[in-house]
């Protein structure tokens, strides 16, 4: 557990929570990234601009952070292209089929004790952990 960073994780998490609260208190919307992002294309007309601006903010934040810190946040990805493509397809299709991801179900849903979100989080956490274990045993790492 030498990479464990509980303080920055808690502060970052609190900011994610603050973002969810801002979007609810000001706009009355759930901060679910898969739904917000998908809606930039598929939502009804008149319901798109705020989504696009939220996504712009999401992209701009680490870039602005990099400007002040002089370095990008750490980023490491080692998977081959087929795993990256398969992962992207599954994440895109699965989050829409299941009506949410780590933010919509994980943060917003759990905080209002939604039984659907509790089910979703248990399943995607379990599936994610099982997948990592299986991939590791196949790749022998």
């Amino acid at each position, binding site marked *: 557990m030498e990479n464990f960073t509980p303080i920055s994780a808690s502060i970052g998490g609190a900011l994610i929570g603050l973002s969810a609260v801002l979007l609810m208190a000001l706009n009355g919307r759930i901060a679910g990234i898969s739904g917000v992002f998908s809606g930039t294309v598929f939502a009804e007309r008149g319901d798109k601009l705020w989504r696009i601006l939220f996504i712009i903010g999401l992209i701009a934040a680490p870039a602005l952070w990099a400007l002040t810190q002089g370095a990008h946040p750490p980023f490491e990805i080692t998977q081959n292209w087929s795993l990256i493509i398969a992962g992207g397809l599954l994440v895109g299709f699965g989050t829409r*089929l299941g009506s949410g991801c780590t933010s919509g179900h994980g943060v917003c849903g759990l905080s209002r004790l939604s039984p659907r979100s509790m089910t979703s989080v248990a399943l995607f956490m379990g599936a994610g952990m099982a997948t990592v274990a299986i991939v590791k045993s196949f790749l022998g790492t």
Partner: protein
Amino acid sequence: MGRNIAALLAGLVFGLGLTISEMVNPAKVLAFLDLFGNWDPSLAFVMGGALIVTAIGYRLAWTRPKPVFAERFQVPGNRQIDTKLALGAVLFGVGWGLVGLCPGPAISALTFGGAPVLVFLAAMGAGMAAYELFDRMTPRPKAA
């Protein structure tokens, strides 16, 4: 106007949270999912911090009759646990475990994640579009 500035601000704060917590790093997310390896519990603290703030903040927000820039709070009322929910969560979890990226971090890493993130985002968008197609072709049961 206010609504759009609020959304931009919320996106910025969300992205800052992902950056500070290092959840934009797929390796760190995979280290959380790797229970039987060199486990890094950081992601649980990210969730914990987010949940405490959201649970309290939502309840404070809902004491007001309506949001500042909108007519009503749009909170999902569906409480039915169905196959779509469960299957979707499992498919998402498998994809998440394969790469270590979920939608927020994948989008947030656009400016520094290089080609892997661009390819992941393209595939994620294709998966979402495939769902929209599937959803429009599936007959909808009439509401009871």
